[in-house]
């Protein structure tokens, strides 16, 4: 499904290479935990694999296409339907309800899909244990609730690959378990999940652990 080869990345602000000649592949039905200490480049790797951060070197092939050689239109279509991404921070539009935050970004104008998307969003929220919060505003939700809403948003179009950056960090173990169980269920239905974490509990759910330090030839 996705193969990354020779990925290197450093930021302009620092001379240190975050990623150096890294290789990884992801297949359908896989739940992979990318692990490593803070600052090891887990989030950077996920961003590169999600197609939202251009690597300095290397290529990311998703379903046979190099993500960074696609047109804006093609890449946007992949982000809308094929790759879901959950950022580390919970970002929601403050004057939209949780349901609107999940559904509106995916709707064209005019849209025939509104009802279908709203039902799907409610189902995800229900399964993640926050079904009763759909009509609340973001400031009324806790960090854990917002994280679950962000996952529901990323899963709305049922992407074949879900990439989640630290989905359980800072959450109580109960909430973390709800999220991890839901992601495990998602993998069973034939999708793939890639999670960056330093939470050891994730290992219990992941089929494969990708140690970012050991996987880089140059570091």
């Amino acid at each position, binding site marked *: 499904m996705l193969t990354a080869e020779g990925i290197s990345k450093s930021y302009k602000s620092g001379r240190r290479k975050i990623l150096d000649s890294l290789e990884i592949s992801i297949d359908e039905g896989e739940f992979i935990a990318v692990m490593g200490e803070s600052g090891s480049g887990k*989030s950077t790797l996920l961003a590169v694999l*999600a197609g939202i*951060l251009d690597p300095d070197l290397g290529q990311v092939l998703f379903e046979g296409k190099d993500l960074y050689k696609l047109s804006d*239109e093609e890449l*946007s279509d992949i982000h809308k339907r094929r790759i879901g991404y959950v950022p580390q921070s919970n*970002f929601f539009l403050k004057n939209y309800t949780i349901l609107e935050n999940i559904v509106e*970004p995916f709707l064209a*104008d005019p849209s025939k899909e509104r009802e279908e998307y709203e039902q799907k969003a409610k189902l995800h929220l229900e399964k993640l244990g926050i079904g009763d919060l759909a009509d609340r505003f973001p400031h009324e939700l806790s960090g854990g609730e917002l994280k679950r809403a962000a996952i529901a948003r990323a899963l709305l179009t049922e992407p074949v690959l879900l990439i989640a950056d630290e989905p359980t960090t800072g959450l109580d173990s109960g909430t973390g378990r709800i999220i991890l169980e839901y992601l495990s269920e998602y993998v069973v239905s034939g999708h793939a999940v890639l999670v960056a974490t330093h939470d050891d509990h994730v290992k219990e759910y992941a089929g494969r652990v990708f140690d970012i330090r050991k996987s880089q030839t140059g570091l």
Partner: protein
Amino acid sequence: MSLKRTKNTIKDIQRHAFLNACLLATVVILSVMLFSVTVISVSLKKGMGNMRNRLGADIMLVPKGEREKAENMLLEGSRSNFYFDGAVYEKVQSIDGISDSTSQCFLKSLSADCCSSEVQIVFFDPETDFVVGPWIETEYKQKLSGDAVIVGSDIVSEDGRIKLFGQEYAIASQMARTGTALDSSVYFSTDAKSELLKNAEEKGSFLTEEQKKGDILSSIFINVDGSHTAEQIIDSAHKTIGDIFDVVYPKKLHESLSGSLGKITGVVNVISLSLGILLVAILLIINSIIMKGRKSEIALLRVLGHRKKDLIRKLLSEIGLISLAGALGGSFLGALIVIPFGRYIGKSLDMPYLGPGIASVLLQILLIVGLVILIVFLSSVFFIIHTTNIEPYLALRKEE
């Protein structure tokens, strides 16, 4: 755009209420300024053009020592009486090189019960006239009789009549607006002169000996034919009627006013340009702050599959909505400020001021709305494109 999308656009604007309010206020000020400056300068130029056409004679002869009064009467609306002996006109007519000539006689009405209002009365000869006739806005079929008058555009009468020195006169027609004192004058045929002078004396007007004689006139308008110069005509007039007159050159009067208008317009343009640059700078700052604050929102929408061009369209539609509201509000506010005070502005500048009609105001509003939206678009488009081009992860990471 669907209703839902419009609602979402408004919600997106509300989310950054303070900065968008600043943007709106700047657009309103910009629109008020553009509308006011445009309307005032167009009205002054129109007033000048109209005055030049209206003072359509090459030379105006007035009694010796009365030139300033005559000029003030034409430009500032001060009411005046000054007279030649009536026989002067016949002598002037005989001068070689005159293509057209006509005479007028002035009289002031009283500020008393006998008169509807205090106006300048102008007696003109419809047979020889070439100064008043071209500016009559509504035609009158019959000959202007002694009990009918033509009034300037500022004279308002509900029943179509005007009372002067205790006598009522029917308003036969109204003059087109000039933006000068001519707008508040009442025009009689010379046939009515002796009766009106008699009524004036009965109602308490102090008449000079000349006025009592009745055979008087105040000014002679002359157009010079192509084979002579104005100076030659004036020389001939001196030889024919003696040194009893001063000359007003309407075109020179216009030229001197044009010079003043040029200076005023120059100052207004410099001030407007400075203010305009300042406002555009403010727009640039506000737009840059707004887009900086929306980096992560834009990044998230890109992660969720929004195309750059769709995001640019979305952001421009928000900016467009604010600009439209601000430009319309600002133009109407400008109209509320400038139109009622237009005449005061013209008077305070000592300039003929011909305010715009409704169609012209609407056209100006339309043009200004278009221009302001374009300015706001141009001041925001760089920041919008820059923000949509930032790699989504970098924008989201800065938020963390």
